[in-house]
């Protein structure tokens, strides 16, 4: 009886681990989609309402999805608490907070960091161009992430279960 219970525990644990890892891929695709939405909102804030950056970040963060909220809210928090911080530095902190929650590759971090470098330094038109460029880059990144998700999500689900079955077979 104890043997069967242990085998079940191992099997369930490994399956859960596999599903958990596979969900990361889904989360990444969603993140890039919502980041594009967030940037569109930021564009509106800059273009039409001329909102100052800390306030704009906070507004966008509140309105956008929970996954990419961290990035905007952390940047807004840094800008508010540290008066000497530039917008780029605040954005960088936001990226650091985001990558702690969702695993990002170096290339994706660079796309986001590049956006931060031009942030708050130039005139409105340049800002809008920067946002448009970043959105286009994020679209490419999203397509790549979707491809990766299609490939790897299933793999991790099956792999988790198979690993559990393998361990059970070895230990039985």
């Amino acid at each position, binding site marked *: 009886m104890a043997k069967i219970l242990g085998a079940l525990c191992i099997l369930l644990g490994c399956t859960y681990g596999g599903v958990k890892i596979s969900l990361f891929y889904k989360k990444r695709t969603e993140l890039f989609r919502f980041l594009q939405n967030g940037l569109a909102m930021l564009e509106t804030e800059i273009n039409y309402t001329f909102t100052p950056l800390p306030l704009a970040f906070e507004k966008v963060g509140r309105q956008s999805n929970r996954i990419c909220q961290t990035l905007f809210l952390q940047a807004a928090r840094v800008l508010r608490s540290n008066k000497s911080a530039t917008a780029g530095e605040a954005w960088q902190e936001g990226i650091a907070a985001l990558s702690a929650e969702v695993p990002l590759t170096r290339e994706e971090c660079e796309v986001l960091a590049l956006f931060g470098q031009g942030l708050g330094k130039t005139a409105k038109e340049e800002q809008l161009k920067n946002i448009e460029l970043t959105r286009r880059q994020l679209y490419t990144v999203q397509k790549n992430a979707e491809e990766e998700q299609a*490939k790897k999500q299933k793999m991790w689900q099956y792999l988790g279960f198979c690993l559990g079955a*393998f361990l059970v077979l070895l230990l*039985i």
Partner: protein
Amino acid sequence: MNIELIFQIAGIGILTAIFHTILKQAGKEEYSFIATLAGVSIALMMVIQLLAELLDQVQGVFFL
């Protein structure tokens, strides 16, 4: 000779084949090769113990 071991080795074989297929489909040929190698070596370790037993018995029969 217990029949359980045979089933165990058969199960390892089946799961190794599944591992190989999944990893190959995901485009990770090198990992699929490693997984197959690991499966084969684990099965081999089980078989080697039995082979050693068999060898002992043969030696015993011929008083070597």
